[in-house]
């Protein structure tokens, strides 16, 4: 165990060192009000983004006679059979079931380490069916993948508004302040480019699962092929060329690509030995599980948290394949099994590292899917369920109300153009509330939250209460 006094002193020194650099982050006022940021040592936040729009209505299914019948009636042949549910319960909302290919999620729920956040989605303000039909403060381009991903990840209601940065980016700016003056960004994507981690004053590092992080040859006298008497000259020129590009006063594109190459050089150099030293081979999963491979990289970086000199880290991973317009019943088992294996293996690894209280993982997706079938699949919906888990989660319960699944007179349904039931469920919980709850756990100040999530003010409950 680390010595907490030393730890706190080190943290304070880092904060002081970072003062001239951390623009927009007030550390001086850090101890006096509830609006202040806090740098509780050692926290990592992980976003699992289910790209394509996850059919969470088949992952977590209402139990109880009436609501299961409603679910079955709206889903028809796409409904999960009652025999294929793992029964769980919520103290106030009753019986529910996880799909039986998600036993690891059910187990985390039953051990009170996972909460289900019900019917969450992009919202500008609390929204009813009549608001939707009147196009009254409705998020832009509903049902379009890229737009809804962007709105989910930025917490904004429109794409081109002033709030174009990700709420993960706001958290990583906070984390950067906590981490102090180290030359490595606090945020990592193992799932490719993401709006979630974009920020005005922080970068994120983008790595690829399944491809070893390589140091860039020619730099730092690294090359078995360039003769030693040439190698140092080559390395110097490589750096000079990057510096020349960065200083291209009249070309932003040259500056950006040069900065990216420079960051790649620094990041791979910094991460190489930390990753070598933390293989975390105890995490076991099928090699074809791409999500698990990404989370394995996350686990290695979390294991290296202290070695990297970091207090806080933010991670983004992405799992594709969720856009199940067709063959849904054939495709869902593979998706659910891969998600279950990855989540289970990752959480077991974090548990084994004795880091469970300091690591929180949550899911997100473009949107939920229609309750109704298009024959053998589902189309783009709006609200959906999400899952938050880890040692700091107040779990074993459902956050928010489970929506109405009934085909008749359903005020939760946005409907279709011929007045038919579509099961495009209007969210009751805003992404902003979900985001704020997670960001507050990381210690982001209320002021920073208000800046990052302007629409949060439209909702009475700023914190959904699922974090201890």
């Amino acid at each position, binding site marked *: 165990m680390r010595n907490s006094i030393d730890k706190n002193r080190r943290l304070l020194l880092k904060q002081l060192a970072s003062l001239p650099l951390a623009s927009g982050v007030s550390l001086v006022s850090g101890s006096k009000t509830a609006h202040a940021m806090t740098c509780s040592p050692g926290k990592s936040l992980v976003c699992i983004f289910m*790209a394509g729009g996850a059919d969470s209505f088949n992952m977590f299914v209402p139990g109880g006679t009436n609501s299961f019948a409603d679910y079955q009636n709206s889903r*028809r042949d796409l409904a999960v059979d009652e025999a294929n549910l793992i029964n769980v319960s919520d103290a106030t909302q009753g019986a529910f079931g996880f799909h039986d290919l998600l036993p690891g999620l059910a187990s985390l729920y039953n051990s009170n380490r996972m909460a289900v956040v019900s019917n969450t989605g992009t919202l500008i303000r609390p929204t009813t069916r009549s608001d939707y039909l009147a196009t009254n403060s409705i998020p832009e381009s509903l049902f*379009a*993948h*890229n*737009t809804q991903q962007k709105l989910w990840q930025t917490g904004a209601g429109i794409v081109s508004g002033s709030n*174009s*940065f990700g709420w993960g980016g706001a958290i990583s700016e906070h984390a950067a302040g906590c981490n102090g003056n180290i030359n490595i960004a606090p945020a990592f*994507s193992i799932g*490719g*480019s993401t709006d979630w981690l974009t920020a*005005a004053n922080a970068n994120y590092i*983008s*790595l*690829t699962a399944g*491809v070893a992080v390589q140091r*860039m*040859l*020619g730099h730092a006298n690294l090359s078995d092929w*360039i*003769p030693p008497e040439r190698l140092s*000259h*080559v390395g*110097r*020129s*490589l750096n000079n*060329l990057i*510096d*020349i*590009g960065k*200083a*291209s*006063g*009249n*070309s*932003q*594109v*040259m500056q*950006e*690509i040069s900065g*990216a*190459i420079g*960051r*790649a*050089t620094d990041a791979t150099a910094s991460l190489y030995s930390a990753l070598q030293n933390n293989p975390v081979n105890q995490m076991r999963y099928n090699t074809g599980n791409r999500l698990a491979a990404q989370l394995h990289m996350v686990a290695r970086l979390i294991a290296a948290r202290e070695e990297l000199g970091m207090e806080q880290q933010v991670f983004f991973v992405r799992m594709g*394949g969720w*856009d199940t*317009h*067709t063959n849904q019943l054939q495709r869902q088992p*593979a998706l659910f099994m891969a998600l279950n294996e990855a989540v289970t293996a990752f959480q077991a690894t974090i548990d084994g590292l004795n880091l469970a209280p300091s690591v929180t993982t949550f899911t997100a997706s473009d949107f939920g899917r*229609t309750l*109704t*079938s*298009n*024959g053998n699949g589902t*189309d783009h919906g709006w609200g959906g369920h999400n899952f938050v888990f880890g040692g700091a989660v107040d779990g074993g319960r459902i956050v928010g109300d489970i929506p109405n699944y009934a085909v008749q007179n359903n005020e939760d349904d946005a409907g*279709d*153009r011929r007045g038919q*039931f*579509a099961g495009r469920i209007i969210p009751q919980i805003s992404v902003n509330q979900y985001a704020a709850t997670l960001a507050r756990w990381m210690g982001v100040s209320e002021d920073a939250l208000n800046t990052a999530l302007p629409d949060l003010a439209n909702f009475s409950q700023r914190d959904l209460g699922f974090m201890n």
Partner: protein
Amino acid sequence: MIVVLLSACSDSGVVVADKDTNGSTTSSTTGSTTGATTGTTTDNTNSVANLDPAAVAAARFLNQSTFGATQQTIDDLVARDNLGAWIDDQFALPTSLLFPYTRTNSNGGGGGPLHEIWWNNAVDEPDQLRQRIAYALSQIFVVSDIDAALSNAQYGMADYYDMLSRNAFGNYRTLLEDVTLHPVMGVYLSMVLNERPNETQNIRPDENYARELLQLFSIGLFDLNMRGEPIPIGNPRPSYTQETVEEFARVYTGWNFPTARRWNDTARSQNFFIGRMVANEAFHDTESKTLLNGAVTSAGWTAQQDLTFALDNVFNHPNVGPFIGKQLIQRLVTSNPSPEYVERVALAFNNNGDGVRGDMRAVIRAILLDDEARNGHLNNPEFGKVREPAIKLIHAWRALDAIPGPLANGAHSPPNFTPSRSDAILGQAVMQAPSVFNFYLPDNPLSAGSTLVSPEMQIMSEANLANTHNNYHNQVYRFNNRSNLNDDNPRVTTINLEGLTALARNAGALMDWYNLVLFAGSMPDNVRNELISYTRTLGQSDQDSFAKAQDTLFLILASPSFHIQR
């Protein structure tokens, strides 16, 4: 082989006076300080004056219209002395295909042969403009076989790409229908086997293809003016609604796999994925549908009648010209075209001069021959684009006479990855995008909060940059014409460094060659000076010349400037 045509300039070749001769002082320090403190256009001045202006113009054009200029193609184009005539020559060339090689070399499973022939065609085949356009189209009309449903349909994937190649110089309306009815697209966006609604069972038609055709293949999310700007400016109007999607979804019902024996025939051979889908009227929704701009189909029409009407309806929407035109400009020429440039291309889409809408030849001519394409780099420092990683590598291979490794059976392969895994290293591989939204979005900001866009920056991750850097290192040092491949991987493509070695006795001449062939005249002077300083660390022997060729080439391939096409 590289032919030395350039007149040698002064022996040092240094443009900015630099008295340092021992190489221990970095001239770039001077250069970068100048750039940083003055912020003037001196940054981008370069030694283009050493070069034949006609050759530079040819090289710039070829970087926009092919997989990269070579000394030979520059010479040929200079001799042709007419860009429009060169385009016509390209229009007339036979089409390089993926299908024959893929069928010969695979049973339809796996992904290797399709990628091998794609790389080979891009590197070596003469129909460069067609292949470059087809690659651009494959990034608009996206299908991807990372999806399990298509990874074992390689004959179909090859056939889909060949369909794009064949339509590259045709009409957009034909292209749109061929895309729509191709069974690979049918699988990818689930239009195949889409059925008319069954309201008693709450079953609606599948909205997938209906939505993506509108959003990505034709008109986009918002009404546009001819300049490609969403209108009304500041508060743009959606170009369609969820209801529109539901109506089009009903149009795209009743289509089956070619050669299927029945509806939902699950015993699918490779032939199911080739050619065009076929209608089965029993599953087509015959109710009338209300489409864009209030156009209504008649009840009782067949699947093909509905489709023809619907695709005409889309095709004639005013958004298509600016929407498709701007994306093609971005793929070929510049990430941030002026609205006027977009408008000129859109007008060519609307009317080829003979009253024909959607003529791709007219669009391509308009894009490549536009004054902004030809001269935009002269007055706009942000003109141009970050080059696609695959095209950058192919350009280097083409320029340096790359040949496949001796045991590669004629298939090109980079040092650090196989062509079929280029997505993991480069961030892109043909028809392997993570979703129908391609490897990158057309509106990806250059940096967080920037008003400039750079689609390609979306895949410039730390991992990709490091891995491609090391790939270039290995290409230059391990896999060249002097390498002993018996001690290394004899399947890897090698580059030929003899031409550069011959030039390297005169550092200025070497830089001029790089500046023309790899930079199309855009090599910044401070980059040139840095490299010339570097060469002074070495002597004049053949070994030294070879070392200069290797080291300067690696420095260039790794440099920020080589990432940018101006």
